[in-house]
């Protein structure tokens, strides 16, 4: 591709001949219900759940694979880039419609393709369309005594296509792994409208793992039009434990002891003092308000194993100086313990209208250092930062609180976010645990990988998606042709 100037087209820029031809073609193929280009429609697709925003050319909403193939071939024929999306709950700008070479992209929403195509109980797998909501699959399989393990916080709205594309996680990553462990096969559509099945539909894979490559591709390798997902038996018993600690270090040390014990928990969540104070005030979950940190621990499986796990956790927490240990006696008490964790966003809403949610990973052994560093970064920038952590796998989610209407606050918020990432890297960590790279973390990849590594990744991407039209400007750092996204959301002080 030719180098292009770094200019963002104006919002009301007139269409180029190629854009006009594409819109006319798609208007005929999809009708007004399937192609939207009004000022309001375009504005509502400027961003996902991140602040990164840019103006799309139009939005196409194919309802079937055939319609999607028409859309992608039209993009190829008219050389217009496209940005795949569905619910737009991503936090890294992966669905922000940045174009390439000064050309605004077409947003291609697969939200209408939302069916459960097959639920294969005996082989414990589900064949889904990309627009199906994660929690709906969970409910559908629960009726058969099965569960789908990946449970990102956005699961009530986030779609499975996006979960595949971003390699999403959730609170059960520690033992069940991220999305990649639950995807048997991906159906990927290329810009010729061809569907490629990567790889087989059985858990046993042979040859090069192209399926693994496509999970986490964030739409840069083509569009996920279907996935075969692995289902697990629903656990017969669940045990939950809450432990409070005087210091972050004691809580972090307990996490280290737990994951090296013979009873690995299925979920290990940590919340720091600021998070506890806000949440207790709002949701009354019964957390000790004088604690520096609480751990929420959960075991799943056969009753005897769960019981042994909870005993082990209580003992280890006590040995590491826990000031309070509460075992959930029944489902109501378990719900109350989790209520606090789930109420974080609501509690924040009482304090500030906006938050910037970070996503970084450090080795478990450096968790205490990282948590202290985040607190220090907040103090330096004069911002409240809460730490909510998938502690078992060292995945931190610092919430930076602010009000976008405050003059100059976004600069401080982004400075804090930047420093959190560079601190994680300095502690031998990485830039994202589960939200994906998108645009937000793209340029940090140069600090994660060598130039050689990135060149190989770029070559693989080009081999799989030679047109360069699929979600350009995402994931891998580029030196040419990018249309920069704006960082300032609607309603912010500028």
């Amino acid at each position, binding site marked *: 591709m030719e180098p292009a100037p770094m200019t963002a087209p104006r919002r009301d820029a007139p269409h180029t001949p190629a854009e006009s031809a594409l819109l006319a073609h798609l208007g005929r193929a999809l009708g007004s219900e399937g192609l*939207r280009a009004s000022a309001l429609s375009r504005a509502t697709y400027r961003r996902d759940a991140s602040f990164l925003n840019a103006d799309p050319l139009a939005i196409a909403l194919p309802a079937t694979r055939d319609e999607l193939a028409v859309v992608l071939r039209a993009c190829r024929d008219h050389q217009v880039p496209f940005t795949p999306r569905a619910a737009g709950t991503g936090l890294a700008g992966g669905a922000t419609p940045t174009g390439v070479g000064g050309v605004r992209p077409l947003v291609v929403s697969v939200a209408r393709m939302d069916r459960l195509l097959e639920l294969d109980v005996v082989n414990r797998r589900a064949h889904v369309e990309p627009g199906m909501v994660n*929690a709906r699959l969970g409910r559908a399989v629960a009726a058969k005594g099965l569960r789908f393990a990946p449970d990102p916080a956005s699961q009530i709205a986030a779609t499975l296509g996006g979960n595949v594309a971003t390699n999403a996680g959730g609170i059960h990553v520690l033992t069940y792994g991220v999305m990649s462990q639950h995807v048997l096969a991906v159906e990927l559509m290329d810009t010729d409208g061809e569907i490629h099945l990567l790889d087989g539909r059985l858990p046993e894979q042979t040859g090069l793992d192209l399926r693994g490559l496509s999970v986490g591709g964030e739409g840069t390798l083509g569009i996920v039009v279907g996935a075969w997902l692995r289902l697990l038996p629903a656990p017969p018993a669940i045990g939950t434990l809450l432990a409070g600690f005087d210091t972050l270090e004691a809580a972090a040390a307990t996490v280290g002891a737990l994951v090296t014990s013979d009873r690995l928990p299925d979920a290990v969540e940590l919340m720091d003092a600021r998070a506890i104070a806000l949440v207790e005030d709002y949701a009354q979950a019964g957390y000790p308000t004088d604690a520096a940190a609480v751990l929420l621990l959960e075991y799943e499986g056969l009753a005897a194993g769960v019981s042994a796990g909870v005993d082990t956790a209580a003992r280890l927490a006590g040995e590491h100086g826990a000031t309070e240990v509460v075992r959930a006696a029944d489902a109501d008490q378990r719900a109350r313990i989790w209520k606090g964790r789930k109420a974080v966003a*609501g509690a924040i*809403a009482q304090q500030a209208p906006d938050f910037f949610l970070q996503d970084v990973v450090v080795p478990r052994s450096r968790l205490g250092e990282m948590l202290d560093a985040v607190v220090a970064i907040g103090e330096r920038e004069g911002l409240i930062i809460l730490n909510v952590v998938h502690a078992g796998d060292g995945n931190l989610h610092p919430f930076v609180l602010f009000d*976008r209407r405050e003059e100059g606050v976004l600069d401080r918020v982004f400075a804090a976010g930047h420093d959190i990432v560079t601190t994680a890297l300095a502690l031998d960590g990485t830039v994202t645990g589960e939200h994906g790279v998108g645009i937000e973390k793209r340029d940090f990849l140069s600090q994660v990988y060598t130039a050689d590594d990135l060149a190989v990744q770029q070559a693989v991407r080009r081999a799989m998606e030679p047109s360069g039209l699929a979600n350009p400007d995402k994931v891998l750092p580029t030196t040419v042709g990018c249309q920069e996204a704006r960082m300032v959301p*609607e309603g912010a002080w500028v």
Partner: protein
Amino acid sequence: MTDHQQVSIFDADQLAACVQCGFCLSSCPTYETTYLEEHGPRGRILAMRLVEEGELAIDDPDVVDSLETCVQCRACEVVCPSLVEFGSLMETARAAIEEQRPPAGVEARGQQVLFAALRHRWLLRLGTTLLALAQTLRLDRVLPSRLRPARRVRLGDTLRGYRLPPPGAPAQGDAFLFRGCVMDGMFRDVHRATAQVLAAVGHRPRFEPAPPCCGALSAHAGREQEAHALAEATIAAYAGTEGPILVNSAGCGGAMKEYGALLGTDEARAFSERVTDLSELISPEEVAARGAALQLTLAYQAPCHLKNVQGLADQARALIAAIPGLRLLEPDDEQQCCGSGGIYSYLQPAFGDALLARKHGALQRTGAQGVVSGNPGCAMQIAREGWEVHHPAQLLARSLTSEVSDQVSDPSPA
């Protein structure tokens, strides 16, 4: 970019509360119809922000479409992690649209008559009587189907007054049955059943005072002043009385429980505290212990304003399920809106019909014989698909009173 207006329409803090996370999308029945952001809560709030910033005008046709296609079910508020007061924002938006471009022509005259009828009981009764006559003579069939109420109104029912049912348990004091507008005009049988239930559990049902309308329909349509006036009149009517105000229309109950927030006065807040649903007055245990068996298999439809505004859907479901012999089935549609939305199904037939079709499918998949739902709008909407819709009060009355009778002398005038 042009500045369309500089006047602030929305409450800045309410608008700032949305972080655009998108958790609301799957709860929104209109988003799930077109899968377009502008037909979901996040897109609608963005439309409001763009209006506030002057990027788009409040009377831009796409902005109007985005905001007026909201059915105001408020399911998004329940799932919103940031506690956005979406219902209030939407009512503000409707009022601003109403001011900028009031309805014109036939639609305007139709709405004038409709809203005048809500304010004046005699006009409503006249309309209901004419409807009953027309239905008897089958003249209503000349109306297009979306304007033809699916509910059959019986002339005798409309003209007959209310009678006090016999007491069924030790006295617990007065309970004021809110008669409302549509309920009083077209659902007098539900009011009679409610009175029987109240008497059966020891309350003395009172049919007076009878303020004309709670104002919910006016508020949803952006007729802000009318909504305030009707709320104030309703509160004033009950001044000097004590005891629960029993509301058997989920939409009215939801609106009346929000009078405190609407008017911001201590008097309004105290009034809202008195507003009560049957499920808050009677326990499932009492029904299970005392009720006679009803051999029915019904699907439960939770009215949006019972579920999302009053937060009573589970409690109300438990009360009905406690009736001995009754099998209550749950549809698989996550209790999404049926598309009634007050007068929404008339104003937005494309969305109203799509929502009804989905509801009909979900109800059919339960295999139930009929539906139970405690809101007049839902009842009439679902009946359009041929369903027999029972009000919870009717089922409770049949179960709790050995014989259905209202032959005792009536101290209250009609």
